[in-house]
């Protein structure tokens, strides 16, 4: 336990505090509001980088822990801390938020003040989810961040934004309220068994829940909440609506960070708390993940709308993450966590660049484009890198994650893993075919001849993403090293708890 206000608290609440300050800025000073919001987001990122530099990669414990009593009579504390998994996701969040904010520089001109404030509050909500080590605190952040996202989609979204926003909230709510009951049940069962009533996650996680009906039900309640967020097939139907209607900034955050909250939940809660149920339902999750991979890829192929294509590709890519998690071996899990980061970066970049051409042409239909290379070569080149990263070209980030996941998956179920591998092939089909129709060939529409190439602001947005794509592709150790110890400890925990003899897991 460290000082009352530690670095994690600062990182988490700086955006919300910045949002409060920005509320004092007059509404007309739009540029000042945008710049202020960006400055707050960048400061948050700068503040979060030392988390990685000072992170002890050899330790599987929570680090930078902070604790303060909150509702002591119920054993609720403000307990935050990060391990290797949350470290990466915190960095991903602080990295993507400034990009999302800056991407909206010209795209969002209506109610700028509210937009900047809502985005910053959203960042605090997301960071809170990743750093919480108290079940109550986690739930507070988990539910609270629904509202800013709802507003981003519903206020600044496209034509069917209201439908999409309400669908997003209701889907997520149904899952998460059941999780609330499961949290309460877990609290009372743990308290009755151990004698101390607490929502503290590390304390509760030390307790071995007896296998049986109640563990199964609690697992299912947690899993439903997380599976909706991931989204795992067949709970994905809110995602295409939300993505298509959300503004570019919203899509970047939604794909980049929000979906990771689901997979993170599986890692942080389902596996360590309910090991028996996780093993029992593992094959089902495995199968649903593979269905999601293939289904998402197939549906992407036939989408006429760029954003919808990227949205369905998320279903496919998140399927890979789920596949990796439920392999329950080191390769699969390390790959899964890395793939969470990869998807955040690649898909975030895809949405960003789709947003850029949407701002120029006000259409996202693939058929409206063609021959862009001749008009906007710089855009096209960077878009190519991003597309290749998303489809898993060796040397770029996507390859590393998917490769590790498949290595892990082949140890579990060869047939399903083989089917999952086709997902990579289909990814190449839908992405390259899309790229070909948009960029290659002759200019088919006169309007496209006058398109402007990337502005300096847009360069500044895309280049960091591309650098990371290459960095992870060439030297993934920077990002996998912190997760290794954490994930090995996680596997140990699941297996000891479940009473299964630890199968020799070789480290890659």
């Amino acid at each position, binding site marked *: 336990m460290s000082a009352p206000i530690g670095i994690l608290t600062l990182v988490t609440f700086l955006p919300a505090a910045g949002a409060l300050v920005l509320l004092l800025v007059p509404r007309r000073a739009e540029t000042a509001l945008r710049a202020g919001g960006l400055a707050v987001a960048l400061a948050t990122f700068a503040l979060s980088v030392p988390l990685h530099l000072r992170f002890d990669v050899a330790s599987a414990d929570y680090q930078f822990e902070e604790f303060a009593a909150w509702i002591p009579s119920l054993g609720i504390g403000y307990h935050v801390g990060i391990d290797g998994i949350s470290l990466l996701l915190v960095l991903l969040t602080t990295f993507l938020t400034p990009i999302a904010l800056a991407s909206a520089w010209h795209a969002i001109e209506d109610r700028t003040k509210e937009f900047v404030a809502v985005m910053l509050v959203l960042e605090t909500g997301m960071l809170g989810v990743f750093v919480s080590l108290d079940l109550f605190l986690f739930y507070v952040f988990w539910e609270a961040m629904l509202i800013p996202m709802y507003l981003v989609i519903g206020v600044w979204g496209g034509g069917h934004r209201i439908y999409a926003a309400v669908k997003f909230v209701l889907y997520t709510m149904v899952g998460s309220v059941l999780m609330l009951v499961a949290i*309460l049940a877990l609290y009372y069962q743990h308290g009755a068994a151990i004698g101390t009533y607490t929502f503290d996650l590390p304390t509760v996680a030390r307790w071995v829940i007896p296998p049986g009906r109640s563990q199964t039900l609690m697992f299912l309640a947690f899993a439903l909440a997380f599976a909706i967020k991931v989204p795992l097939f067949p709970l994905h139907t809110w995602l295409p609506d939300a993505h298509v209607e959300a503004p570019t900034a919203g899509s970047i955050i939604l794909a980049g960070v929000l979906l990771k909250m689901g997979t993170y939940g599986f890692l942080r809660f389902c596996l360590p708390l309910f090991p028996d149920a996780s093993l029992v339902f593992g094959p089902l999750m495995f199968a649903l993940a593979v269905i999601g991979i293939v289904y998402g890829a197939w549906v992407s192929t036939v989408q006429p709308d760029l954003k919808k294509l990227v949205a369905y590709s998320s279903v496919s890519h998140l399927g890979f993450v789920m596949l990796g998690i439920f392999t329950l071996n080191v390769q699969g899990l390390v790959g899964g966590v890395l793939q969470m980061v990869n998807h955040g970066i690649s898909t975030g970049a895809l949405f960003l660049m789709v947003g850029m051409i949407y701002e120029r042409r006000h259409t996202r239909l693939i058929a409206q484009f063609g021959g862009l290379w001749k008009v906007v070569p710089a855009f096209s080149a960077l878009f190519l890198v991003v597309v290749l990263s998303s489809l898993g070209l060796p040397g770029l980030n996507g390859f590393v994650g998917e490769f590790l996941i498949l290595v892990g998956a082949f140890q579990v179920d060869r047939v399903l893993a083989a089917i999952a591998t086709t997902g990579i092939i289909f990814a190449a089909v839908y992405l390259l075919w899309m790229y070909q129709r948009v960029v290659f060939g002759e200019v088919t529409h006169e309007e496209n001849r006058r398109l402007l190439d990337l502005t300096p602001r847009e360069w500044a947005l895309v280049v960091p993403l591309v650098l990371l794509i290459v960095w992870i592709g060439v030297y993934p150790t920077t990002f996998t090293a912190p997760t290794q110890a954490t994930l090995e400890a996680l596997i140990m925990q699941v297996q000891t708890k479940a009473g299964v003899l630890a199968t020799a897991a070789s480290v890659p």
Partner: protein
Amino acid sequence: VNAVAAPPVALGALAPVLIVIGTAVAVLLLDLIPSRGKAHLAIAALAGLVAALFTTIAAWGGTVRAFRDMVVLDNYALFFHVVVCYAAALVVLLSVDYLRRAGAESGEYYALVLLSSSGMLLLAAANDLIVVFLAIELMSLSLYVLSGLFKRRREAGEASMKYFLLGVFASAFLLYGIALVYGATGATNFDRVAAAVAAQPRDPLLVAGLALILVGFGFKISSVPFHMWAPDVYEGAPSSVTALIATGSKAAVFAALIRFVVAGVRPAQPDWTALLWVLAVLTMTVGNVVAIAQGNLKRMLAYSSIAHVGYMLVGVVAGGAAGAGAVLFYLLAYTFTTAGTFGTITLCERAGVEAVQVGDYAGLGRRHPTLALALALFLLSLVGIPPLAGFVGKFYLFGAAVRAGFVGLAVIAVLNSAVAAYYYLRVIVAMYMQEPEGAPIVLAPSFAGGLALTIAVVGVVLLGVMPAPFADLAQAAVAPLLR
């Protein structure tokens, strides 16, 4: 055997009630002095409520029994006194400019609000079925009049008439139940009823009496199937009065209900638990499902308040210190939230009339961002989004249910909250995501109303972020009941 001692008259137990009644009389007298406006009456009423609030806070911790245990001023009663005083004070603040704009300003209004509040205060301290009946009548008679205040509107007449007829009907049930209980036990005092119930929990006369009393309470808190009056009354009554009906009166009746079932008839627990379980499920489900179909905001809130009664019944079913304490906390949270919601309605007009349709609120987020933000906070608190008061309240309620083993009930309740999200969000959709067709909504500026809303916002946020002290108070309040 012993000489009959003259009962000691301990007026201390009635101090808050007497202060409020005294203020009511003073307001009526002040009204006789000719003056330009009526604002000074509101200030007088407010002063009386604040004085009662301070008396209450000063009395915290002690237990005063008076009139042969017919009235007990313990922490439990004091907690409800605080809730009622807050609710009444917020209502007075909201009324000042609202009534002037409606042309219905009158001295009797404030006197009636105070008289009704004194009934609520008495109800919270009642430890005897006769006092319960008296207090309910004192509270309700004033409310019947208040709900017909806008007498030129047809809805007001309907509201007042309906509220009166059904209220009297409920009182008759209550009284008949009291009579049966008296017949079975020979007592109306809660403690003596408890002793008799412990001796003979399955006496048919007693069970019938308890059932009728529950019906009477059910009417007053508008639980399904006794809720029919609520939407019409909420719609027809002035919004400030609706706020009082939805918060103060509900809290007071819950006070009596919980004291009765927890302290009075605890020995017959399995019977009424099963009954209340069904009532809770029916109440929240019907309330939420019907609320979805409402286009009128006040009617929607009426059905939503029915649903919230269902959630609170979950706490009553859970029972024990955790369940009862959760209901108390929820009532406090609900009072701030609901008074705030209705308060916002009193400030909004469209095309010269009060904005009561959900569609009227289109574009409020653009025209009046601060007011829209306040209303959004209240609505989100009603949905149960953290970190706002409503979420913590639900957390305590459903936690108590899970703890007592009613996991199924908790699941039904949380699914209901998810359903409720839909219709509350519709208002937010209107405020932030739609543009008005025709005349836009306008804000009727009001210092007092703004003050009331500020208090409510602070309450909603404070109870959500720092719930621990208030939850501890609620726990301390229910401790005397469970001895």
